[in-house]
Every structure is written in structure tokens, then in C-alpha cells.
């Protein structure tokens, strides 16, 4: 590790030949405190459960499988309609049924499937109809969509990504 003779300002890029990690050698207590806070659990919302499931092993397969069950089957929405065009009333129905499944889940799988339907419906409504069908504040909704987009497999990721851009 290269120890600089005179400390560069915090975050200054390392000089030629120096260890790239030396960019952090001058980290200040304040900066470290800010970053340390990131290690604490942030305020959690329901979407975090969906994010956790998508991020866990087999998340990609689960995202495909979950669309073959309620609330998607009851409403008659499949992956193709979510990535193409689905009538707005169907998306609202999907969101409402998903919400019911979350509030009164039959089991853990039903709860997670309800979340998937709920958030996919909201994202698809934004992308396809430019309609925000939830009262969640837009700033918070944008963060949720970004969270899901960062872990979702394709083509879910594309739907959430575009929704985050447009909300």
C-alpha cells in the first residue's frame, strides 16, 4: 500500500502507480459516518420482501413461475401483456387483487405473488398508460421501482426501469 507523503483531499483519485484503494486512505470521519449508516437497515416497506425474494437464489425462476398463479391467472394477465399493452382496467384489477392477497395472504407464497402482481401492475400502468394507479407519493414510488429494477430479472427489470424513469 502506498502511503501518500502529503495527504490529498478526500476522495482524490490515486496517483500513477499507487494502490487504487488509496482513494480511501483519506476518508474523513464524517464521510465514514455517512457510509456506515448505509449498513443499518433502512425503513422497510412491503417492496423489500419482493426485492428479497427476487434477489434470493432461484429468484429469476420464481419470477417466471409466479405469473402462472393468482393474482395473474384470475385477472387473465400474462407476461406478454405486461410487457406489451394490457387494458388499464385489467391492470387496476391486478393491482387490487394483489393488494388483497398481501393483506390476507393464504401463505408466504401467496403474499409474495400478491406483491408481484401489485407492483407489476403499477409499473405497467405507468409505462403503458402513463397512469399512476397508487397513492404512494411519487418520490417514494420512484425509489421502490428503482429497488425492484435493481434485482429483477428481464423482462421485469425493463418494466420497472422504464416506470422509474417515467413516474
Amino acid at each position: 500500500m502506498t502511503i501518500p507523503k502529503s495527504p490529498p483531499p478526500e476522495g482524490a483519485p490515486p496517483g500513477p502507480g499507487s494502490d487504487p484503494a488509496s482513494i480511501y486512505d483519506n476518508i474523513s470521519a464524517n464521510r465514514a459516518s455517512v457510509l456506515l449508516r448505509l449498513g443499518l437497515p433502512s425503513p422497510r416497506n412491503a417492496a423489500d420482501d419482493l426485492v428479497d425474494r427476487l434477489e434470493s437464489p432461484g429468484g429469476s425462476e420464481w419470477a417466471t413461475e409466479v405469473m402462472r398463479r393468482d393474482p395473474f391467472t384470475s385477472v387473465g394477465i400474462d407476461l406478454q401483456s405486461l410487457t406489451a399493452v394490457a387494458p388499464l382496467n385489467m391492470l387496476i384489477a391486478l393491482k387490487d387483487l394483489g393488494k388483497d392477497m398481501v393483506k390476507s395472504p393464504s401463505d408466504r407464497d401467496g403474499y409474495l405473488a400478491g406483491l408481484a402482481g401489485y407492483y407489476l401492475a403499477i409499473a405497467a400502468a405507468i409505462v403503458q398508460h402513463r397512469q399512476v394507479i397508487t397513492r404512494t407519493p411519487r418520490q417514494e414510488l420512484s425509489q421502490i421501482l428503482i429497488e425492484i429494477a435493481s434485482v429483477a430479472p428481464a423482462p421485469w427489470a425493463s418494466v420497472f426501469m422504464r416506470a422509474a424513469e417515467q413516474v
Partner: protein
Amino acid sequence: MSANPSWAKKVNAAIYGEPRRNLGPPGPVSSAVMQEATKPDVFPLTRGTWIEDRMGLGESGRRELNNHVMAVYLWPLTVYFRGTRDRYLGEPEEVVQGFFASRLVKKDFFGDWKASGKRLRHWLINGFCFYLKELHRDKRKFDRGSGAEMPEPVYEEAQAAKDIDGVFLRGVVRQAMIEAGRLCEAQGLAEHFKIFEAHFYLDQPYEQVGVLHGVDATRAAVMARTAKRKFQSALRELFMRDGADPARVDDEINSLLRIAGVLAPQAMRRTSTPESP
């Protein structure tokens, strides 16, 4: 654990095979000081996870433990040493490496630490301060009186613990950044990490970072979010490797934030139900 840097290899070589200088037993220490030095921390950690698992794995586990200590504590101890008046004892990094080579070779090092009930960083700074005294005496004895005009290193345990807490706060975050960066690079997420670093470490807004990376602000935020999760995992794992019970990592983080004078926000858990539409 990341790949060994050259200094770690050197110290490992000293520990596991090559001849090393015998620094002799620690100098005389008063019983009062020893009693204080072995007193448990006010908030003792529950041990028994990562470190204890390795302690039961023989030499390979011990090597992992030593690598952890060297990777995480080289920088904080070096910074601590630079802040003392004992610089005449040698180049900071060499002094710290000498300390590692001297202490990590001891078979009972981690067993003794466990018995102390102390946080690892407090156990280490205690040992490091004694090591500085040994160096001073060795210098006087073997180096023809070099440093004889200098007073013996002195330290007060509570103050040393407080000092190392502040440096450790910076050190653990620094190490988590390094490890998260390496992990992201290994997983093809180097650009994600660069964006995370630019936003969270260099304070650049996503709009600006996005332009540099050819993505819009939303995409930059999504990419940073991915790297942020790696950073969070690396940070929390460092605390666990350091002896914190996984269920008490939040307490450890909050404790460090209190030490830094930062009021830690209470973690709020909202009900796991979507907002009303």
C-alpha cells in the same frame, strides 16, 4: 476474504515458516494495568460465529483469521501509530507488520482474546501499545542506545480504546469499500461500483455521474443501488468476522456512530403492506 497483498504474504511468511526475530517476552507490566487490560468491555459481544468457526478449523482457519486481522487492522493501527509521539520507533507500516508477526504467531492469541471479553480492536490496541514498549526497550538494548533519549511509550487504556474506535470507524468503512469494489469487479459490476462510489463517496449527483457513464440518472441510481447492496453486505460481514453476533451488528454500528458523535436514526419498520392506492 480478498487476495493477500504483499505485506500480508510477508507477515504470513514470518508467522508460518521463515525465521523471525525473537522479540522476547513482554516487558514487566503492573498488575493494575493487566487487570484493567483484561476487563471486559461494557457491551461485550456475543461471540461464536465466524471467528469461533475458524478457531476450530486448525491451521487453515487460523490463516484466515490472521488474514482478516491484517487486512482490517493494518490501516487503523498505522493511522493510530502515526498519531503518537513514538514515530522514532520505525516506519508506521513496518511497525504494525512487526506487531502482527509478533502476536499472530502466538498459538493462544485468539483464545486469549476470547477470554478477555473485549472487542477485537480493543484487544489489539492494547497489545499494540505493549508492543511499542517492547520495541523501545529492544531499540535501547540492541541498537546501541538508539532512541535512548526518547521516553518510553506511554498509553492509557481507555484513551487508546477511544482513539482506536474513531480510527476503526473510518477503517471498517474503508475496508468495506475496498472489498465491495473487488466483489463488484469480480461479478462484472465494476461500472455499478464506480457510480456508487461517485455518488456516495464523492458526492456527485446521479445526473452528473450518469453523463460520465453514458446512462440517465435513473439508470445510474439503479446501478448504484446494486453496488450499494454489495457494500452493505461487505460492511456487515466485516463486523461479523470481527466477532459481532449477526443479530447485533446494528448495535455495533450504532455504537460506533455514537462514538463518532453521530446520532444514529432508529430503524423503523413499517407494516409489510402496500400503501393504500
